[in-house]
């Protein structure tokens, strides 16, 4: 199958899916009665603060919240002109966050790359720990290596992340002088990038990476071990042994390649998890990632912020599945030539 053709086809279907998703997200966010501003107005009226009401009324008009829902949707996406002409997601205007009283892009911009950074570090940690351990555990199955890897793994799986975070903060600070909470020293916040700032961020990353990564690494290690053990029992492994291959070459060339497929297929889940996966941990650790912002936005019906974050997660999910499908095609000839005439 022509990979380019397939990519184009997938991109088209992805855009269609995004459209459907946007409708659903908008509908769900607007399910509860009222909106952020009408709630605020009601509250202001109740407490008799009339001057605030005017501002809220103005914002309601400015962001078209007084119009019917379907019109609001079209304006939000950018299909229809709002009070200020076309300015929706398509035009790159993500709207205003009422909760933080800032444009959504300002809030998200900073948090977004920190989120990606934290989770990327965690994913790298997962792969670096899980791959070698899983392979060794499978190759030496039912030996002390296997058992101790499994023990550590289950410990990682069973310990709640936030508990692990608190423990690591305490002991990390006590014995290693690691900082507690945050992603950089306070004096660097809002500062332009500099060498000391990078260093500060890296040091702050250690505990979060470990916390977010352990359970993932444990799960992945167990899965890799199980996959690899399955593959090791297959006849083609015997063929490879009968050729005279050394155990290490045999293992890496044949069964490991096969055991990889599930992990490539997993990339589709990894990308969105980078944003939404570590919400709880971020809240506990006080990381300035997008997770806490999303949580706050959902709680207070801050609809533009919530809508944007959810759209972004949906987009990552779709891109992730597409990437993993394309990678699978490259890795596995059976998928690549699935449609080729025999």
């Amino acid at each position, binding site marked *: *199958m022509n990979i380019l*053709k*397939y990519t184009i*086809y997938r991109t088209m279907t992805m855009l269609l899916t995004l459209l459907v998703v946007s409708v659903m997200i908008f509908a769900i966010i607007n399910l509860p009665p009222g909106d952020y501003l009408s709630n605020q107005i009601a509250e202001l009226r109740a407490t008799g603060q009339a001057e605030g009401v005017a501002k809220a009324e103005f914002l309601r008009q400015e962001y078209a919240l007084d119009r019917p829902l379907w019109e609001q949707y079209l304006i939000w996406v950018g299909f229809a002109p709002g009070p200020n002409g076309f300015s929706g997601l398509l035009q790159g205007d993500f709207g205003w966050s009422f909760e933080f009283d800032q444009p959504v892009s300002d809030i998200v911009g900073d948090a977004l790359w920190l989120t990606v950074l934290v989770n990327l570090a965690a994913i790298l940690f997962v792969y670096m720990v899980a791959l070698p351990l899983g392979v060794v555990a499978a190759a030496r199955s039912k030996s002390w290596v296997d058992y101790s890897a499994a023990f550590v793994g289950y410990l990682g799986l069973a310990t709640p992340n936030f508990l692990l975070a608190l423990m690591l903060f305490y002991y990390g600070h006590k014995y290693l002088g690691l900082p507690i909470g945050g992603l950089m020293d306070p004096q660097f916040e809002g500062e332009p990038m500099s060498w000391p700032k990078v260093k500060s961020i890296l040091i702050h990353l250690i505990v979060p990476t470990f916390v977010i990564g352990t359970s993932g690494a444990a799960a992945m290690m167990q899965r890799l071990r199980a996959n690899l053990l399955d593959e090791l029992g*297959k*006849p*083609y492994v*015997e*063929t*490879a*042994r*009968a*050729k*005279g*291959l*050394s155990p290490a070459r045999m293992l890496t*060339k*044949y069964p490991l*390649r*096969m055991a990889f497929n599930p992990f490539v297929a997993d990339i589709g889940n990894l990308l969105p998890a980078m944003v939404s996966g570590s919400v709880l941990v971020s809240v506990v650790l006080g990381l300035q990632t997008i997770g806490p912002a999303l949580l706050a936005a959902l709680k207070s019906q801050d609809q533009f912020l919530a809508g944007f974050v959810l759209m972004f997660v949906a987009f990552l999910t779709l891109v992730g599945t597409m990437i993993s499908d394309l990678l699978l095609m490259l*890795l*596995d*000839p*059976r998928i690549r*030539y699935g*449609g*080729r005439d*025999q």
Partner: protein
Amino acid sequence: MSPLLTVEDLTIGFRNSPAPVVNGVSFSVDQGETLALVGESGSGKTLSCRALLRILPRSATISSGEMILNGRAGGIDLATLSERRMRGVRGNFVSMIFQEPMRSLSPLHRIGNQVVEVLHLHQTISKSAARQLVLDTFDRVGFPDPERAYDAYPFEMSGGMRQRAMIAMAIVSKPDILIADEPTTALDVTTQAQVLGLIKEVQREIGMAVILVTHDLGVVANMAEKVVVMHRGRVMESGTAQAVLTGPAHPYTQKLFAAAPAIPAETQPAPPMPETDLILDIKSVTKTYTTRAGVPWKADVHVQACRNVDLKLPRGKTLAIVGESGSGKTTCARIALGAERPDDGGEVIFSPDPAQKPIIVNRMPKAERFAFQRKAQMVFQDPYSSLSPRMRVIDALCEPLEIHGIGNRSERRDRTVEMLRTVGLNPDMLNRYPHAFSGGQRQRLSIARALTLDPALIVCDEPTSALDVSVQEQILNLLEDIQEKSNLSYLFISHDLAVVARIADEVAVMRSGLIVEQAPPETLFHNPQHPYTKALLAAQPLPDIARPINLKLVAQGAGAPDSWPDRFRFDDMSVPTLAEVEPGHKVRCNV
């Protein structure tokens, strides 16, 4: 001169189990000679040959014995060689091909890559020279386009082609010994004949010795010079093939021979099967499967699994459908049972009781289907996966009765006990789980389960192909006994003409979804007309040294339909009719 390989007193045991699984086995092979290790499952033949390469399962160990390899290796004992030096033996002096060509090659690597690896492992050879050598070998094993095969992936090839690739991999470094572990068991019979022929030719050319592990005495008769018969880890009998095959001395060997089904050498045409009182009448049934392309720029693929099939099964008789994989025989069986609906125009009529109105199987309402299922049952191919491992025997056998609401608890239990007796099992076993039974016993359970509802028709889908020969014999006997006792009718699906020869009253040979020839077995064996039937018959390995496989006949009929003589050819568009050439003998040809 000492033999190429001498195995002396080889004993293999499993950790945790005191009794050895291979016990004091000795044999020897000379250069250029073929030795057959014959035995049923559990005889230790496979472990013995794996021990030669020391690729035993992790829990198995060689506890005593020696395996002296002479030849190029120059007198080394494979039993005590270091693991490192052993790697230099594998694939180099001794190589091996396996039973399942479908799974013995890595699906993710190109064929050429997997074969050329052997050369780079054992020789210092330039990349281009190695590639050339592999291409030559591909040509040698019969790939029409070696360059293309080099870059192909295993899944793009048929089973026979994959086994050729395995053979290429095994012989590319010109080993002294080739171990072939049931190399053709998973292949169709015509492919088997060709692959066996290829192994023989290559052996003659390279002068290597072949150790052939097999359960099939027919294969032995066609291939081997020496035979070692194994049973429960011990050698029962050994000697030249001539001596063992013509006058087996050991009772176990004699038993094996008695059980091996064979196509009778001399037959007289039989009278045609009566066409009155039909229990099952399949009328012009066609089944088209559609594979969705999944992407918009490709058309869906339509495959006709069977085309215009007409079959009549008289009450109390056995109708066999014979064909190789992909012939459409299983689709026919599924349609006969209503598990699959034929394309419009086809009809399946089932009349379990001549006094009552027949059932139109292809359009049964729900209630009628329920009644139909009581009267038509199935016995499956694989007794290991067709019984739930989590259900006791009594539950598995009572379930059909419960579903159909027959009897109360104790009556059902009595019925199960009776069924177990019928199939020759002890009623004490009612509370056991299937894992406690052997393959043959499980197939008996399957049959008992099919019988509990007292059906009129049983569809047997390759009921013996997963079983050892001696067990196969017992199951066939059982099926015949039951038929006689209760006037059952069988629709019998098989790939094995010798099995069919025993049990069937009429045989329909299928190829590419079409019935190409149909007759009572005696008539068919006496006077086969269709080139494909002839190829099937010629390819059948018989345990008789005097009747070897006729590769020429196989080659004439086993290929694609457009390689057949003019009057037999068919394609998607034009198909000759099934013409009656003599009473009860139909052949698809232009008369």
